[in-house]
């Protein structure tokens, strides 16, 4: 009832993290596309994007200065499976594999900013179906980081 409103992190901090996250996701060894994009998916071709869910927020402030922030994001994989259930299952398997990989391969976010925890908060699932046959599958993540 008395939940404190979230305090957003500085826009500069969030932008810097998003850039680092783009470099990080593109280091995944079995990426099914040439480049995973930021917030952009192409129609009629297989594509992948990293997308923020909501603005990064401060979750803790420390007495010596610095803070812990939360950055929520998702990875969306667009496929055109036709009638292939196997293609749909493969898409979910791929995203779940990225989820497991992420938990053990934290991104580098820059000087004085480190990842405390990164985990998938869901398993991959179908997110949307379009008239042209495209399907979007997605997995959600939550990352806690510290600026000290």
């Amino acid at each position, binding site marked *: 009832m008395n939940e404190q409103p979230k305090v957003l992190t500085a826009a500069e901090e969030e932008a810097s993290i998003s850039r680092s996250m783009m470099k990080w996701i593109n280091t995944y060894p079995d990426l099914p596309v040439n480049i995973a994009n930021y917030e952009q998916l192409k129609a009629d071709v297989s594509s992948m994007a990293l997308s923020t869910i909501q603005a990064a927020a401060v979750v*803790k*402030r*420390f*007495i*010596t*200065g610095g803070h*812990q922030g939360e950055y929520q994001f998702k990875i969306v994989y667009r496929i055109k499976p036709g009638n292939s259930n196997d293609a749909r299952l493969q898409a979910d398997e791929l995203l779940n594999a990225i989820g497991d990989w992420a938990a053990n391969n934290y991104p580098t976010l820059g000087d004085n900013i480190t990842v405390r925890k990164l985990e998938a908060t869901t398993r991959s699932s179908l997110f949307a179906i379009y008239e042209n046959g495209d399907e979007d599958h997605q997995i959600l993540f939550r990352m806690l980081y*510290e600026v*000290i």
Partner: protein
Amino acid sequence: MDDEEIIEETEDEEEVADLTFNTTAGNTVERELMIAYLNTGTSQSPTWSPIGKRVEDSSIELDWSEETKNDILGQTYTNFKKPTLTQTFDPCELDGGDTAQVKIWNMAIKDRDYAGLTNLDMLIVHFYAGTAATPFAERYSACAVRPTGLGGEGGGAMTMPIEVTYGGTRTVGTASKDSTTGAISFSAAT
């Protein structure tokens, strides 16, 4: 004691002028402008390492041993004693980069140096008071630093909460922070 000596004595006891806050008037003072440091170097060549990394809430508690009484005329009087200062840092997650914590861990966990833990040199810097470049600071020569536990829940970080009682000789002065290295130095007031 002749008249001249009396005058000198009076001058010696003259109080130093009140300090002002160097923060913007009308704004509250940020918590991070008061930091406690542990001397992880030597007495002659101190290295001041901050305590409280990742701690969200910690205050210095002042116990004045207050005693209030009403006399037979109906007047109320209150007595204070010099305050005892204590501060708790909880949860204090273990971090190999936290020099103060590593020193305390070695003394408490590895060496069981209970005598040494009651004789630690600490500095409190009030960055908001005095000038911004040379803020007010107080050094305590024999503080008791008491880790109250070591552990934590599975999947989380290991923690070592710490309770500090500031003690020993209190020396006031100013601190300065190296703009490049961030190292703290202390100068006693003359």
